[in-house]
Structure formats: C-alpha cells, structure tokens
C-alpha cells in the first residue's frame, strides 16, 4: 500500500511537471503540493536515498547562482546530483526536483543533492530530509511584506538550524548577520580579504550587533553590510575566514585567488559573484571533493536565466538581469558602472506576491548613481511602471518613458543610441521578458 502511494505520488508529480512544461512553466510548485498530498512522506522517502550528502543553499541574494555553481562542480566530478536549478525553492518546489530525478517507482539514483531553499521554508524542509551542509549566501533586506524584518528571517533560520541536528554551516564571514548563525554551531566561513570597492551609499542592514546591540564598525567595506567588520561593544567580529578571495581583478571580467591556491579567471561579471563562487567552492571542498579543473568548470558555467544574461537584438548586446531588492539593484547598478559603454536602460517592477507587494524599497535603491553611468535613455515598465518612473524622476532623469514589455518595445529600446542595452527586472517580469528576448534575438 505504501509502495503504491509512493508510485502514485511520483507519477502524478512527474505528469504534472511535464504538463506544466508543455504549458510553458519553468519552476514547479503545484506538482509537489499534489505529490505530497498523495504521499506526505514522499520527500523523506526520496531524499533518504541520496548516497552521500545533502547541501542546502539559503540566503537573500545569490542562492540560485551559488547552488547551480555547486551542482556544476559536483557533476563535473562525475557525481549524480538532485538540484532545483530554476530556483523553485519552497518545500513543494524542492519536492518537485526530487520527483523529477526519481524513477516512476520512487527510486532515486543520486550521489548528492544540492538544494536551493527559501529562508522561510528551510525549517519545513528539514522535517523531511537531512541537511548535511547549509550554505548561507547573505541576509539583506528583502520584501518586508513577505519575510518581515531581517530579524524575523534570522529567527526562522535559527528555528531550522535547531531542528536539523548534525550539520556544518558554510557562512559568509563578511556578513555580520549571517555570521550570527555560527555562534555555538559547527561552521566554516568564506569572505573577501581585500579592500577593492568604492564606497556605495546603501541601506545598511545589520548596523547593530546581533549579540549586544552596539554599532558594527568596519575596517573596510564591500557593499551593503558586507566587509571586514567588528562590534564596537563586544568581541563579536568577522570570524577567521576559511575560504578567502584575494588578488581580485574586476576589469571586464572576474579573476581572483581562493586561499592563494586556485586562480579563477571567469568571464561573467559582478563583484557579488565572487561570493557566489566562494560559497560554492567552500561547499564543494567541505564535501571532501577535489578537482584540478575548478577554473575550467566554473569558467564554462552559464549564468541562469536573467543573471546578466546576454542576448543580441538587432545587432545590439542586450543584457537581462534579475534584481529584486535594494542590495540586488545596487549591485546591478555597480555592474553597469563598471561597464564603460553608453547604455539604454529599462527598469521593470512588478508587485505580485512573489515579488513582494510593497514597492517602498524602490526608494532604498541608489538609482541616483545611474545618472553617472552613461545612460542614454531610460524606460520604466512592469505593473508599477508609474511608481518606477517617479522614482527615476527623483534620481534626476527628466525623460523617463513608461512602456509595456513587448517584442516591439524591446526592439525599440535595443535600437537606442547606447552601445549596450540593460534590462533590470524583478522576479515575475523575468520569465516573460526572457521569452520575448528569445524570440526576437538574432539567430546564428
């Protein structure tokens, strides 16, 4: 009877995932919900079959990239991996990724699982499966109507860690919020050991020590609350960094050393990607795996949908990037600033529940900085295009055009006077925009 329900749950899940794909859906949620209704222990049953370890990746920004980098490293080492690649990261989405990897009889052939998990869902996920390693990318202010204040997110993650039993945390040591989880727990840390960024005006989360409440001070500072920090009131400070990046070169690429042992030379951009790579490398190393091809594997990694994803539209490079909170937007703007070409820019903001319905955070983004990065023309789009246009007006742009994202408007924007076109969009705008870009991008 139990066996039958396992098969039914797996089969139903697989069929619904397939039906969803046919209907054009990327992530999966409902199939997982239904499979878990048919057999509530389906995730327990499947995850138990993972032969080696299960790694969770949590945090505000960089989850999907970090998790996929780790998955690439594992697969390049010849391992079979369960991975929720497109970032369906609530419990039901996690269930979908296991169901997809399983046979219809509910058998799973996997060495590792590399699972991106929403910060609020980890406490549910660990009831169903072990978490041998948990990576935290960072904790930034994000969608307050969904997650509440950052202190609430810390509480939810602590709840998960208290349930999980034996685990090793892999934490961003440059982040005073994330480092909190390491207190009294088994943890290793990664971080950037070099002062290499200009000062960015940003909403600074975590300015107060999570231990004693005094001000957090910095020897140097990267962005948001990340840097070489110490508490002015107690002895809580940036921990010893087990996996560090040095000798950083950001000039048109991303090159750095890890622990002075491995030199990475990657062709994707964005300072924040150093953290994603470090986190994935740390997890890989902590799993006891070694490779001589790290640089090659990470270099061949193709960024996921909308992570500075390039398209050619009418001969013009058009870059699609997901940005969904102030930290993400400010990093995207920093990446635009590092690109010296002139540019046409579209900002698109939706306010669906999965985007966060509250768009107040637009005023925490340093859009003023966009005025200094060679913007030729600027467009506002999404459900909240009027709010976005108004915010951009205050950032000093006089002629902000509001548009809806269609093939025609994207062609027109890409055909502007800039040398390159950037589309910065939040979550629910992303997939539709990518679909249009695929249809209008230059072939061959």
């Amino acid at each position, binding site marked *: 009877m139990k066996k039958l329900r396992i098969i039914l749950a797996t089969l139903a899940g697989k069929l619904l995932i397939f039906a969803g794909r046919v209907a054009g859906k990327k992530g999966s949620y409902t199939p997982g919900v239904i499979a878990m209704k048919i057999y509530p222990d389906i995730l327990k049953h499947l995850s138990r079959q993972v032969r080696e370890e299960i790694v969770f990746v949590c945090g505000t920004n960089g989850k999907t990239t970090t998790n996929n980098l780790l998955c690439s490293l594992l697969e390049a080492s010849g391992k079979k991996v369960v991975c929720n690649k497109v970032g369906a990261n609530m419990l039901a989405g996690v269930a979908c990724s296991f169901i997809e990897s399983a046979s219809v009889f509910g058998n799973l052939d996997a060495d590792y699982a590399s699972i991106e998990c929403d910060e609020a869902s980890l406490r549910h996920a660990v009831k169903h499966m072990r978490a041998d390693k948990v990576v935290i990318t960072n904790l930034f202010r994000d969608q*307050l*109507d969904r997650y509440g*204040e*950052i*202190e609430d997110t810390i509480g939810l993650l602590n709840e998960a860690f208290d349930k999980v039993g034996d685990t090793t945390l892999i934490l961003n040591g440059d982040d005073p919020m994330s480092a909190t989880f390491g207190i009294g727990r088994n943890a290793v840390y990664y971080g950037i050991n070099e002062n290499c960024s200009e000062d960015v005006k940003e*909403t600074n989360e975590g*300015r*107060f020590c999570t231990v004693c*409440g005094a001000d957090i001070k910095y020897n140097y500072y990267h962005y948001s609350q990340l840097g070489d920090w110490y508490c002015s009131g107690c002895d809580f400070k940036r921990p010893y960094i087990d996996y560090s990046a040095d000798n950083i070169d950001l000039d048109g690429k991303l090159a750095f050393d890890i622990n002075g042992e491995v030199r990475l030379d990657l062709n994707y951009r964005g300072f924040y990607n150093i953290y994603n790579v470090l986190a994935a490398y740390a997890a890989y190393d902590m799993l006891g795996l070694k490779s001589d091809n790290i640089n090659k594997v990470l270099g061949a990694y193709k960024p996921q949908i909308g992570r500075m994803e390039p398209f050619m539209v009418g001969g013009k490079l058009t870059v699609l990037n997901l940005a969904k909170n102030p930290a993400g937007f400010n990093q995207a703007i920093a990446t635009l600033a590092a690109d010296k070409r002139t540019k046409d820019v579209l900002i698109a903001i939706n306010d669906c529940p999965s985007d966060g*319905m*509250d*768009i*107040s*955070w*637009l*005023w*925490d983004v340093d859009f003023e900085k966009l005025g200094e990065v060679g913007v030729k023309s600027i467009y506002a789009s999404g459900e909240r295009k*009027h*709010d976005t*246009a*108004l*915010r951009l*007006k*205050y950032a000093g742009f006089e002629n*902000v055009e*509001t548009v809806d994202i269609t093939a025609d408007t994207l062609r027109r924007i890409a055909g502007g006077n800039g040398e390159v076109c950037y589309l910065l969009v939040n979550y629910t705008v992303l997939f539709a925009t990518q679909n249009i870009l695929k249809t209008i991008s230059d072939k061959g």
Partner: protein
Amino acid sequence: MKITIAHLYPDMLNLYGDSGNIATLKHRLVSRGIDAEIKTYVIEDDIDFENTDIVFIGGGGEREQLTVCNRLKEISSDLKAYAENGGVILAVCGGFEVLGKYYKTASATVEGAGVLDITTDYCDKKFVGNAVIESDLIGTTIVGFENHSGRVDIGTHTPLGKVLCGFGHNGKGAEGVVYKNVIATYLHGPLLPKNPVLADYILSKAIEKRYGTADLAPIDDTLEIAAHDYAVGRFLSK
C-alpha cells in the same frame, strides 16, 4: 524663503524607503524657488526645534523603534511644545506609534512620547497591503502601503482619512491621525512622492507658520498623478 526639515533618526528608522518623503518635500520646495534645508539628526543629537519647520519620523525595526521611543520620551516636553504650538510633524509607520501614550509589542508595553492622545495595542495578525484612504483634510485620496501589528485607538482625535481599500489603523474604517499640524499614519515609507496634494498641504502649513501665508505655485506633477491614480484605479476596483 527657507524651510528647515528635521529628519529624525534615520540611523535607527530606515525600514521602507522613508527618505522618499524627505526627497519629495525638498523637491517641491526647490521647484518653487524656496530653499530647503534638511537636517539629519542621529539619536544622541539635540534637536533645534526653534529653527525647525517640519519634523519627519519614519519607521524602523522593533529594537530601533524602542531606542527612538526612549529618546523621544527624554525630549517629550520640547516635542509636545513644538506640536502644541502648531509645529508640523509627519510620522509614518512606527513613528505613528511612538507619538502616542503607549504602544504594545508581543512582549511589552512601551510608554510613548505622548504628543498624541492615542494608544496602540498589539495583535499577532498583521495588517499588510496596499491602502487607499479618502481624506477630508486635503479633499482627495491618499495611497500607500501598510504593514502593522498595532491596532490604534485614536480616542477623540480626528482620523487622517476614511479607508476605501485596506485595513486602516485598527481595521474599523479609519486611518491615521490629524492633530493640529501633526499628521501620523501607518501608510509607510515613501508616502509623499505619489501623494503630492498631501505633500503640499504639509509644506503650506510649515510656510504659513513661519511666514504667515503660503502660496504654492503649481508644478509639474504628471508622473506623481499617474502613480497616484494608478493605485486608486487598481486597488479601488478590486
């Protein structure tokens, strides 16, 4: 002509893009040839109420709100005198709660600055969402976003408006408080950018107090009105 705006404690209160309010007040002054001075006060600073025309208090996390509330209690006699004397205050989100007699959290009752004769109880069900209210004070709608566990009893004070969409300060149809030139509301963060009529009301009260009369020339509000009307149209039709 110059208007001085005191931004209270953004080192503590910066939860939801509150700076949009300061930017709006400044823009609407400067566009009319009026000088705007923004004085940013951190928690230990003394406030120069004498030379202040508008006080802005935003929202923060629970711990930061407590720190701010304790500080406001220390200066409450000056703050009360400023308000009683017609000084302009805009308080949003947690700023609304700390101006009252007390506010409750899940675990404590915190005595407030007592500028307003209101009290705030705690409820574990949060009121979260877009809101539209109709305000007799300014003769039009005010749009915004609310996210609060507090339920405010505004006593005999006048509400800022009637809730057309959303919950309001206690779920009973009213939102916010107007007392003399103090305006307090749960509509948080960047309240003023897309409520230009409210912004001008606040400015005109400040200018009248300092200079006797206020005559604010119209400025280009195309984008402001588009954002306002979009919210009204979308959330009222639901």
